[in-house]
């Protein structure tokens, strides 16, 4: 698997758990830690952890681009840049000229050709009545268009384990780094896309795609109703002749160094899950879409002026939900498999933390851990404290 060139964060972190550290803090006291008791120095642990997170924190890191060990001549990936030599600057300048004046125009042309062909081709295919020929042509059109678009990004994709490729009537699940993921996956097979219906250019593309083969586009209002969403997807999956649906359970773009918590909704639909791991090589271009920082157009421009997009895609063996396994556990199982294969960190945090505030439960967990050190393992009332299976 690919080893991330992710450099270590700003801080050297103490590896100890809360218990270990508290024990050290209290070592000077004569009472043992198991007896409990509060020590004035206990707060130092929380104090330090708090300040560490102010300086640098694991979650926010995931939503900004990966830092590279050695510079790849793209200013955008350079954080600690200082002027090194005239020669390097000249090489960089040449790089800029090549990327912007040579590669970029070629790529834009290809992208326009690819997208136009998608719209025209799918509309034409939509006029055909015959089932089998229509499906075959539709797949051809889709594949052709996505391949052109991939060339338009100078994407070099390597697929591994093609024997595990998602089958019809299944659900394909992958980690999400950018909207380009769709192009990457669709280069090798046809999928039914799932998403929100947009207006404008995206809407035109979406509507014409639906003419040639079924995709699942939701209105924004429908997306709120989880049951409606699940039942529509279920209906799609149940019709065994439909293309496998493509879902990104993280819900948002992550910077490709880790996999965040999978939303369990996709795993409640039933059917076979085909996990796919996507790993971009950051040396050639940073594929992560930081939607807070860049809008779609500037993002695509950055993509088209990078050196290349080099991707590894691993198809993992299909998984199904086991007896007695709930959706959350299943989601975590799939997530671990994807993270393991792609060489990404398996994180417990929720992707929606980018936007929402963290849940109170996590704070309570900290308090629980600490209280067991202070008052021992006695429960507060006679009730048993509830178990920590509360991750959504």
């Amino acid at each position, binding site marked *: 698997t690919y080893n991330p060139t992710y450099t270590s964060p700003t801080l050297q972190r103490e590896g100890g758990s809360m218990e270990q550290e508290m024990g050290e803090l209290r070592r000077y006291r004569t009472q043992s830690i198991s007896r409990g008791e509060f020590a004035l*120095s206990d707060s130092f642990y929380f104090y*330090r952890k708090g300040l560490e997170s102010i*300086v640098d924190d694991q979650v926010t890191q995931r939503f900004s681009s990966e830092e590279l060990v050695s510079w790849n001549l793209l200013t955008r990936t350079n954080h600690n840049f200082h002027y090194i030599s005239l020669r390097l600057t000249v090489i960089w300048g040449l790089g800029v000229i090549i990327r912007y004046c040579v590669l970029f125009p070629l790529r834009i042309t290809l992208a326009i050709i690819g997208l136009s062909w998608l719209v025209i081709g799918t509309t034409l295919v939509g006029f055909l009545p015959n089932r089998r020929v229509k499906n075959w042509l539709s797949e051809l059109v889709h594949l052709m268009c996505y391949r052109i678009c991939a060339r338009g990004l100078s994407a070099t994709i390597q697929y591994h384990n093609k024997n595990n490729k998602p089958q019809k009537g299944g659900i394909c699940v992958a980690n999400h780094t950018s909207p380009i993921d769709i192009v990457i996956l669709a280069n090798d097979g046809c999928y039914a896309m799932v998403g929100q219906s947009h207006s404008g250019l995206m809407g035109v593309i979406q509507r014409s795609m639906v003419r040639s083969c079924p995709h699942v586009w939701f209105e924004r209002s429908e997306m709120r109703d989880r049951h409606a969403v699940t039942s529509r997807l279920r209906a799609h999956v149940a019709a065994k002749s439909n293309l496998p649906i493509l879902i990104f359970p993280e819900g948002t773009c992550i910077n490709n160094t880790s996999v965040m918590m999978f939303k369990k909704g996709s795993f409640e639909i039933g059917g076979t899950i085909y996990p796919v791991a996507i790993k971009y090589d950051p040396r050639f271009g940073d594929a992560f879409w930081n939607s807070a920082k860049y809008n779609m157009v500037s993002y695509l421009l950055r993509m088209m002026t990078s050196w290349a997009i080099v991707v590894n895609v691993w198809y993992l063996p299909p998984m199904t939900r086991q007896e007695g396994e709930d959706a959350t556990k299943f989601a975590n199982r799939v997530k671990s498999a994807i993270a393991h294969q792609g060489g990404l960190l398996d994180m417990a945090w929720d992707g929606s933390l980018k936007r929402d505030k963290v849940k109170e439960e996590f704070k309570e967990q900290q308090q629980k851990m600490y209280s067991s050190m202070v008052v021992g393992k006695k429960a507060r009332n006679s009730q048993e404290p509830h178990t920590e299976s509360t991750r959504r």
Partner: protein
Amino acid sequence: MGSTNSTLSKIPNVEELVQETGFTPAHIVRLYDRFEALDKEKTGHLRPQDFGAINRLAINPIGDRIIGAFFSPGQETVDFHSFVRILAHFRPADKKRPKDPSMPEPVNSRTSKLKFAFQLYDQDKDGKISRAELLQVLRSMLEMQVTEEQLESIADRTIQEADLDTDDAISFEEFRKSLEKVNIDHKMSIRFLR
């Protein structure tokens, strides 16, 4: 073209900051980047909400107090200089620095760190940690996990142990004495990697 030097030139009075806090210019640049990342609206100042957006801090039981430490009383914003100055308290001690009584106490010395920790407890800044103040901190750290009686007995015990002049409060000297064996430099420092 970006460069450490150009970021440094964006920060006013860097020399002063380096002198005062002992951070290297590279560290200050790192902190500046972090400051800018937290300052989402690019006002040049941080407000309590900007700190609140840090998830690991939001789940920290005494997160609010830590945030409060950055803001002087009555102030609603903190600028970059103050930000760095507060963080400087947590710099590891400089072992090689000679003890010069004529120089002001460095901000990351053992005493300064202890003073800083003391202020976490002593919110009204009267120089003593009263029983009520101690209870407040305990409540933050333990919240619903223990009963009010348990909290009070813990507070009583703690004061009993540390309070030497029996005024039912913990002064800074008593605080310092009760923690004299703790390796403050180790426990109250954050180490930068580069």
